[in-house]
């Protein structure tokens, strides 16, 4: 059976992981792949953790990624990187946003935000490429494009041309938001190349 590649996106409800996964899926379809994409709605939307599983190849079977099987991960929040780390395949790559969003136990001062996430991921032997997508979005004047900036950084780890990404962005993002999103993608991609 032809090999299937697995990409997991993880973040916090409201961070725009779904838009990023839609752009990714569109790109993969354009490139002629079979694609399956799985996400769970519901309670997760109220500030909970969210993940999207994207798998592509010739004929994709399972709609979800099992622990230890993700080739790539795109993580939108620091603590979430640790939460999903065990899904990564040995030798796999995580592109993670340097962004800390406090969860309920931290907001109500029962726990503190962990300050050792990068070290813990390093101890697991994981290749994490940290990116500050928030600053890119902030500098562009709209923090909502943080997701596409991060996608830009992630785009460098996959074997697809820049034009292919741009085409997918054009297909998924409404015309009136395209300019700032393209700018965010470009900045992110520059960051990813470093």
């Amino acid at each position, binding site marked *: *059976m032809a090999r*299937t590649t697995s990409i997991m996106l993880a973040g*916090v*409800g409201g961070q725009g992981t779904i838009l990023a996964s839609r752009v990714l*899926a*569109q790109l993969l*379809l354009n490139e002629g792949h*079979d*694609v*399956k*994409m*799985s*996400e*769970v*709605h*519901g*309670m*997760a*939307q*109220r*500030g*909970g*953790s969210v993940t999207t599983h994207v798998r592509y190849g010739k004929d*994709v*079977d*399972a*709609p*979800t*990624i*099992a*622990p*230890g*099987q993700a080739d790539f991960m795109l993580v939108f929040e620091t*603590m*979430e990187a*640790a*939460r999903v*780390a*065990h*899904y990564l395949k040995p030798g796999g790559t995580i592109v993670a946003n340097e962004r800390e969003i*406090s*969860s*309920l*136990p*931290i*907001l*109500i*001062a*029962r*726990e503190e*935000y*962990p300050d050792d996430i990068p070290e*813990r991921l390093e101890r*697991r032997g994981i290749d994490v490429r940290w990116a500050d997508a928030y600053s890119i979005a902030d500098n562009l004047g709209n*923090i909502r494009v943080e997701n596409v900036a991060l996608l830009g950084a992630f785009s460098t780890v996959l074997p697809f041309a820049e034009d292919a990404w741009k085409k997918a962005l054009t297909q998924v993002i409404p015309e009136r938001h395209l300019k700032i999103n393209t700018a965010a993608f470009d900045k992110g991609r520059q960051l990813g190349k470093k």
Partner: protein
Amino acid sequence: MKSLMTGNEAIARGAWEAGVRFATAYPGTPSTEILENIAGYDEIHSQWSVNEKTALETALGGSIAGLRTLCAMKHVGLNVAADPLFSSAYMGVNAGLVIITADDPGCHSSQNEQDNRNYAKAAKLPLIEPSNSQEALDYIKIAFELSEAYRTPVLFRITTRLAHGKSTVAVGERVEVEPREYVRDVSRFVLMPAQARACHIALEDRLAKLEDYACSTQLNRVEWGSRKLGIICSGVAYHYAHEVFGEEASYLKLGMSYPFPKQLVRDFAAEVDRLVVIEELDPFIEDAVRAIGIEVEGKSLLPRVGELDSSIVARAFGKADDETPVPEKVTGRPPMFCAGCPHRGVFYELGKLPVVITGDIGCYTLGSLPPFAASDTCICMGASISAGIGFQKAFGIMDPENPRRAVAVIGDSTFYHSGMTGLLDAVYNGVGLVTVILDNRITAMTGHQENPGSGYALSGQTAPEAKPEEIAKAFGIKRVATVDPYDLAQVKKTLEDSLADPHPSVIVSRAPCALLKRAAVRKPPYYVDQDACRKCKVCLKVACPALYVEDGKARIDAAVCVGCGICAQVCRFGTIKQIEKGGEN
């Protein structure tokens, strides 16, 4: 080029292509988007029903009247609709009727993970299970043909992974289907005992014919690989099995698993050395295989609980050579009330009272979690009021002089769904339950669906607006109050007044969901006066995503705060203030 569709989108598309003219549902994760997508097709009249029972009865009426009709609900919704479900099998249909049950293995958004394939067997209905979006689309069309050919409703079972998972789909075109003439037939549409007995005989006869169909239909197919291992599977489990075993096994993939295709299974079993069933949740297929005297493995290797994935399947059969990766221990990220949520203040006040709080199904189920720790129960839709009656009665029986008090808390849509009958029960039985109806003007939990109180229909057109206060008064409740949930003093006083009354009472807490765009009112955010903050952290008891502590002092994230003002009312030192319009903090 093929497009990516969720299972729910594919079902909507398949229904449209199948010439469906009418569709009903009550929203429930993971089924909600089926009707939302169907509403986009002009040829199909679609409506939110008040609950799943009314949805199925309405759909059955539509089918008997002559239109191809679809009815969708989540798995626990079928419990509510079980009464008409069983009758529908006896009477059968006129035009095609397909009932979608969206099961939730893994309890992603449900109070249980019941396996609704068992309903097909219990109610004696044909059961169809697609494995991906393309099959969802194709099988819906077959389901309508089957429904009309055998005059039976068809139960169409999907799971969360299929409902919300996207896979590639090639679409077709709509084929118009002429309405079927309605002919009065009391021999099957009036289920009095004499008719019902005859209907049951006809139903058993139909099941035998459907089993023949199940043995020959394209829905059930054999894929030959190695004959050392034979795998029987259905639904998404087929893809997990195929991912793990590929050509190293043969597959009997059941797209129609009830009535159970016995001969097909016997023939398949005879060709393979080892026979296993790979299925999620209950051993539905496995038990049926064993019942015909064939040796089979299944749940002795695979879990009955939760979703499967390819790793679980691989490990069950010794196909994985590595250890299961151990997750990092990380602080949890449970869902929480949004900034500006109208439920926040009500639960803050309720949590301080020495009462038992019977909760219900909706965003406000979160009121049971810290720091509110208010609600004591969440049973099923509408149970807040009826279980509250039970608590209040029992407390009264145990301590007639000074009974502990119960307060039921229920959302607007849940109240219309199945809370109203409980409220009438409280009045009828004279139980002094306090019922709080959280009217946030929308069915919020499932993603903002209209309901009988919201003033709009699924089509987007305006609809008559039910008023919980008027319903309560019509039922004979004397103490009916309306409160602004952003006014904590008013909420507190009204709760105290109602608890002082030994008769049943209702408090309607009315304010739109903070995420409801059409009702959005932009208010300036609040800030914490850093010089005045005394680090007491009382404000953290309202658990707002905008409120956090830095260097011991409370702070508010102005980008998240929507200016609801609950935290400012909780602060005892007046240090939380609203930014004046145009000014700086």
